[in-house]
């Protein structure tokens, strides 16, 4: 008779690594430096990026003169983006988005004519809250310090495009195991002078 085969418990190393790799990067967004062109002034971009009641019906971003939007966000530190999630009403939510990584001076003409870093089709299912974030071509989003999102139109061809929230996902830019503690690094990335 042979020795009994003992099965080693599977350590969940892989899943924890994946969780680290896939973090909501909201805390790395620059809270003061963001802009949404052609947005109604009463519905600012901050509604959609920050705040506890982000998914609230009233906190939305609405477009003004026509259905296009040009959103620019800045990150406090250089990040890698893995996925993006946009929550919006399925009728007047964006039908597609064009992403530009670290653009120079971008206006609506430039956004339409130039090829972005990646163009993504958004199906109505992708816009529902809790939908799966959409994977990006990771290779092209390795050194993102600012990002422009161009919304050329919405599903219903309505006059106004409405977005409820935008979330960015990627590996945490904080490196585990380097000398300062994790808490100190997080504090540093939010602005040294606040300490």
């Amino acid at each position, binding site marked *: 008779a042979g020795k009994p085969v003992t099965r080693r418990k599977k350590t969940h190393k892989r899943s924890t690594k994946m969780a680290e790799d896939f973090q909501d990067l909201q805390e790395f967004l620059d809270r003061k430096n963001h802009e949404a062109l*052609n947005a109604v002034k009463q519905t600012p971009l901050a509604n959609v990026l920050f705040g506890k009641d982000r998914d609230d019906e009233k906190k939305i971003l609405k477009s003004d*003169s*026509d259905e296009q939007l040009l959103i620019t966000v800045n990150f406090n530190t250089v990040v890698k983006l893995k996925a993006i999630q946009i929550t919006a009403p399925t009728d007047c939510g964006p039908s597609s988005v064009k992403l530009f990584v670290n653009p120079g001076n971008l206006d609506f003409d430039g956004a339409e004519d130039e090829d972005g870093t990646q163009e993504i089709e958004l199906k109505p299912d992708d816009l529902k809250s809790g939908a799966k974030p959409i994977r990006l071509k990771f290779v092209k989003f390795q050194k993102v310090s600012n990002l422009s999102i161009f919304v050329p139109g919405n599903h219903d061809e309505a006059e106004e495009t409405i977005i409820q929230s935008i979330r960015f996902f990627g590996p945490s830019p904080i490196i585990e195991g380097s000398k300062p503690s994790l808490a100190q690094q997080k504090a540093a990335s939010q602005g040294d002078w606040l300490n």
Partner: protein
Amino acid sequence: KFRARPFVSRACVRVLLFKMPLEAVMVCMDNSEFQRNGDYSPNRLIAQRETINHISLSKTESNQESTVGLLTMGGRAKVLCAPTRNLGALMSELKEVKIQGQCDFVAGIKTAQLALKNRQNKNQHPRIIVFVGSPIEADTKALEKLGGQLKKNSFAVDVINFGKENAQNTNVEKLEAFINKVNNESNSHLLNVPPGPHILSDMVISSPILGNASHGGAGMAVPSSGGANLSNGGGVGAADNTEEALLAYALRISMEEARDAQQRPEESKEESKAEPMAEEKKDEAKKEDQKMELEGVDDDADEEAELARAMALSMAMDDEDEEAEEKEAGGETGGGGEVDDEILQVFKEEAFIEDLIDSTGVQKDDIDIQKILDFNEKDEGKKEDKDKGSK
């Protein structure tokens, strides 16, 4: 003893902290053949030059990061000076402008848009100031389309339509349609300057384009959302008076608030309400002096005693309330203590603190406000004790 203290109320601190938004301005000058016309003396071109002088001064002074650039629309639209703070360079280019060709409004605006698109400081709000001194060839539809584009890209536009023929031709309606398309919450204006003896630069200075309420700035103009840029009409030194006018306005508001504030705790006092504190203290000092005089006089000759009594009587008849006021004022630790408390009370109001902190861009939760206030109070307490001791 009488001590002069700057009394600062909540409203006037808000006014003083208010800054004009920073802008990148592109001025589009009309140097077409129409500018030879002398309906603005000596001719339209020179009238524009003076106005642009004032505009660039005003914009660069209202905010330390604002920039101004210049382009001409006659013939081919040409950028003479990219947005800069160096007014010397701007002025020298302005002087060299020659009259040529015809203006293309749409091309001029598009060129201005391009020049502002490539500005270095992204935080500056782009603004275009156009001088229209000749008939516009483009049709209303093209202008509306252009306006919509500008609004989308969050550009603000101010148009100055001047010249005899332009008051009557289709310019006015075309430009009105244009401004309606561009306007986003009153950031854009159309100024029609009819022909007349007035000076073009005066009309522009007193218009909403440089922050004044329309119909001139008669008296003190209230700071609007466009900015606190008060100035007299005309004169090169107009922009210099901005800060003084602002301070005077702020002081006036604080005086009024001081009067209102005195009404509340002084229900027991009789009449002092209408009088500001400075006056009160002066009277108090005067009264004290006279009291001393009267006492010393009793030892002297009767004549002098009688004179003094007569004076006292006349004083008593003139201002009955001053006596009552002086008795109660004498009982306090002096007006100085009151002012400190007022200031501290203002700072204790949370809404005011929130405003102050928001304006500096700091996150509220990260500061221990209570600590700072307590520290202040300890200081004030020490100072007051010192005063009482010396008295």
